[in-house]
C-alpha cells in the first residue's frame, strides 16, 4: 500500500493508474497468486487472491482493480484456454506486464447479453471482429481483452452463438474510445472498445466456439462474489473510519448533540450480517459448491447494504463528509457501482426467483 496510497489522489485526478503500479503489484506477487507454479504463479489458494482484493477495497483503491484482473478475467484464460494460451499469457498476467479486461456490455446489450451485436466471422486463419463494447473496466490500460462475440450469426440462440475471443493490443482494426467520466472509480479507466474488421488469429479463441454464454454464466458467479467482497470491505472500512472520527470528536467534545448508539448499532449489525454471509459463501465457493442462488443474494444485499451504511456514515461526519478530503465521500461515490455491474441487482433477484421456481 505504501506504493499506492501516497500517489492515489493524483491518479484519481488523472483518471488512470500508471502501468508501473501494475508491475509493482506483479513484482510483489499480488496478481493472480492462485495460478499454478508451472505457469509462473505462486500456486496459492483462491483465498489469497480474495484477501488482496479485499485489502484493496478496504483501502479504497478502486482504480487499481486487481480483483478484476486476477479474480474475474484471468480465470477465463485459465479455465477455458488451452495449454499454449495459458503459457503465452498467464506469466504476463502474474508479472503485471499484461493487464486484463473482459468485454461483454454493448450499447444495446446490458442485462440482456443475448442481444449483443459484436460479431466474429472466420476468414482463413483469422476471426474478423466487428462491433463496439462500452463501460469496459481497464478499457484503456488493458493489453489483453476477452471479448464476447457472436460467432454463429445464423443461430439466434445465445446459448449457441457466443464465443470468447482474446484480442491483443495492436491487433489490426482494434481501437479504443474515450475514458469515461463517472461517479466514482475515477482512476479506474472505463472505456469504449471499437472493432472495425479487427483481425485476430483463430488460435485466440478461448475454449470451444459457441460456448461463450455458458463460460460467462459460470465465471460471473465469481465476479459477483468479488463484487460482494469489495462492497463488504468498503462498508467495513468506511464504518471503522467513521467510528474513529466520531469518538475523536466526542473526546474533543465537539459533538454538540449526543448521538445515541442506536443508528451506529444498526450499521454495525448490518455489516456483521454481511460479513457472516460472505465468509460462508467464500468458503463454499473455494470448496467447489454451487453458490449461484446465494451469491446472487449476497451481491444485491451486500452492495445495497454498503451503500446504505456509507450514506449514513457521511451524515455522522456532517458537512465534512461531503468534502473529498474526508475519504468517506469517495467510498460513497465508489460503492455506488456495485449494485449496477456484474449483473445488476435486479438481475440478481431475477436469478433468485428462477432458482426458487418462480
Amino acid at each position, binding site marked *: 500500500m505504501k506504493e499506492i496510497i501516497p500517489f492515489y489522489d493524483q491518479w484519481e485526478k488523472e483518471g488512470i493508474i500508471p502501468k508501473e503500479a501494475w508491475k509493482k503489484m506483479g513484482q510483489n506477487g499480488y496478481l493472480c497468486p492462485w495460478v499454478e507454479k508451472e505457469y509462473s504463479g505462486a500456486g496459492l489458494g483462491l483465498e489469497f487472491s480474495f484477501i488482496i482484493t479485499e485489502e484493496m477495497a478496504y483501502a479504497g483503491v478502486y482504480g487499481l482493480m486487481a480483483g478484476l484482473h486476477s479474480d474475474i478475467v484471468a480465470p477465463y484464460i485459465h479455465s477455458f484456454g488451452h495449454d499454449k494460451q495459458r503459457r503465452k499469457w498467464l506469466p504476463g498476467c502474474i508479472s503485471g506486464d499484461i493487464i486484463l479486461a473482459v468485454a461483454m456490455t454493448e450499447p444495446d446489450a446490458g442485462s440482456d447479453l443475448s442481444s449483443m451485436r459484436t460479431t466474429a466471422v472466420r476468414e482463413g486463419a483469422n476471426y474478423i471482429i466487428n462491433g463496439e463494447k462500452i463501460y469496459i473496466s481497464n478499457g484503456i490500460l488493458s493489453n489483453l481483452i476477452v471479448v464476447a462475440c457472436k460467432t454463429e450469426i445464423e443461430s439466434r440462440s445465445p446459448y449457441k452463438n457466443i464465443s470468447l475471443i482474446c484480442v491483443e493490443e495492436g491487433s489490426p482494426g482494434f481501437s479504443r474510445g474515450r475514458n469515461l467520466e*463517472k461517479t466514482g472509480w475515477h482512476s479506474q479507466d472505463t472505456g469504449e472498445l471499437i472493432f472495425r474488421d479487427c483481425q485476430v488469429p483463430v488460435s485466440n479463441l478461448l475454449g470451444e466456439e459457441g460456448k461463450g454464454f455458458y463460460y460467462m454464466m459460470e465465471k460471473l458467479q465469481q465476479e459477483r462474489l468479488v463484487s460482494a467482497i469489495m462492497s463488504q470491505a468498503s462498508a467495513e472500512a468506511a464504518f471503522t473510519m467513521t467510528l474513529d472520527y466520531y469518538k475523536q470528536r466526542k473526546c474533543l467534545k465537539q459533538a454538540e448533540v449526543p448521538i445515541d448508539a442506536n443508528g451506529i448499532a444498526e450499521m454495525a449489525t448490518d455489516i456483521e450480517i454481511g460479513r457472516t454471509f460472505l465468509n460462508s459463501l467464500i468458503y463454499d465457493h473455494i470448496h467447489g459448491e454451487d453458490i449461484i442462488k446465494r451469491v446472487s443474494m449476497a451481491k444485491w444485499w451486500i452492495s445495497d447494504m454498503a451503500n446504505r451504511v456509507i450514506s449514513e456514515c*457521511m451524515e455522522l461526519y456532517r458537512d465534512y463528509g461531503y468534502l473529498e478530503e474526508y475519504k468517506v465521500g469517495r467510498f460513497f461515490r465508489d460503492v455506488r457501482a456495485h449494485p449496477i455491474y456484474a449483473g445488476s441487482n435486479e438481475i440478481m433477484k431475477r436469478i433468485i426467483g428462477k432458482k426458487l421456481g418462480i
Partner: protein
Amino acid sequence: MDFHLTIEQRDIQKVASEFAKGEFDPDAALDYDLRQQFPLPIWKKACELGFIGVHFPEEYGGQELGLLENVLIVEAFCRQDSGIGMALALSGFGSEMIVRNGNEDQKTRILPFVAHGEGIVTSAFLEEGHFLAPFATTAKIDENECVINGMKSFVTLANMADYIIVVCQTRMDTPQAQTVILLKKDMDGIKVSSMGEKVGMRMVPVDQVVFADARVPVENIVGQEDTGYFQLQDYFNEMRIKTGAMGIGIAQGGLDKALEYSKKRQQFGKPIASFGAIRNKLADMYMDVEMARLITYKAAWSFDLGKPDLQAILMAKMISSQTAYKTAYNAVQVHGGYGYMAEGQIEHFYRDAKVLDLFLEPRYIQRNMLADNMLGR
C-alpha cells in the same frame, strides 16, 4: 381544505419550469459540475426574469410572494438540473435575514442587489465542530464599530460573494447572545480560502472565512444586537423548507428521467418498464416524491401564514432530503451502467442529493429535535 395551488402559483410553476427547460443546457451543467463553477450566465438570466428573490418586498426588487411560491421555483429548477437548481437557490444565501430584520439602508442596498443579479450574498454561521451556541467567532461592539475575529467554515460561494452576513458571539456568558453583521467581502481583515473539492453540489464551492480584526460601523448590525441566535432560528426554518424544495425537485427530476429511460430502453425484447423490478421502483419513487411534496408544501404554507409549524418543517426537511437521496439512487439504478457515467446525466443528481441530508443538521439531530418537540421539551 383545498390541495390545489392557486392559478398564480400554477403560472409561476409553469414559467419556472419552462425557463429551466429552455436555459439549463445539460452539457453545460456537466461542465460546470466538473469544473466546480457557478453557472453565472444562467443565474443572471434567472435574475433578469425575476426568479430570484420573489419573496422580497416589491419596493426592494421582489414580488412580495410567499415562501411557497419560492418553493415552487426552487423545485422546478432542481427538477430540471440538480446542480444548477441548487446554485440558483443559494445565490442569495442569508438575504432572508435582511428581509426580516434589516434596516432600511441594508434592505435598499442588499435586496435589489440580490434580486437583480448584481452580485452574490452569502451567510457565515457554521464553525469547526458545528457548535451553534456559543460561537467562537466574536464581535466586540462599541458605540461606533464592530470588530470581528474568528473563523467560519462551509460558507457557500464566499470567494465570489460581494457581501457576507456573519453571525458572531457578542457575549460569552450567554450562549444565545449573538449578533448578525453585514460585511462587504472585500475589506481588510477578511481572508477566504477554499475547502476543496466536494462530492456533489460542485457548482457551489464552499470556503473557510477568517476574520482578523475586521472592522465595520455599527450601522452594519442586522436587527438588534444580541438577537442573532433567534434570527438564525427563523432563517433555519426557512432554509429547511427550501431544502425540502430542493429535495422534491431533485427527486422528481430523477423520477422523470427514470420514467423516460425505462420506456425507451429495451432489454430482452421489451422496454425495461415492463419488468417488475423497474415498475416497483417507479411506483416507490412516485409515492416518496408525492409524500415529500405534501409535507414540504404544508410546511411552507404554515410559514407563509406566519405560524411556522416546526414539526412539519423538520419532517419536510428530513423526508425530502431522504427522498431525494433514495430516488436519485434508484434513478441511477434504472439507468444501469449508463447511470454511473457522467454522460448519463443522472449520476450528478445522486451526488448532489446527498448534501441535503447534511444541510443545516443531519437527520439524527433533526429526529431528536422532532422528538423534543413531540415530548414538549
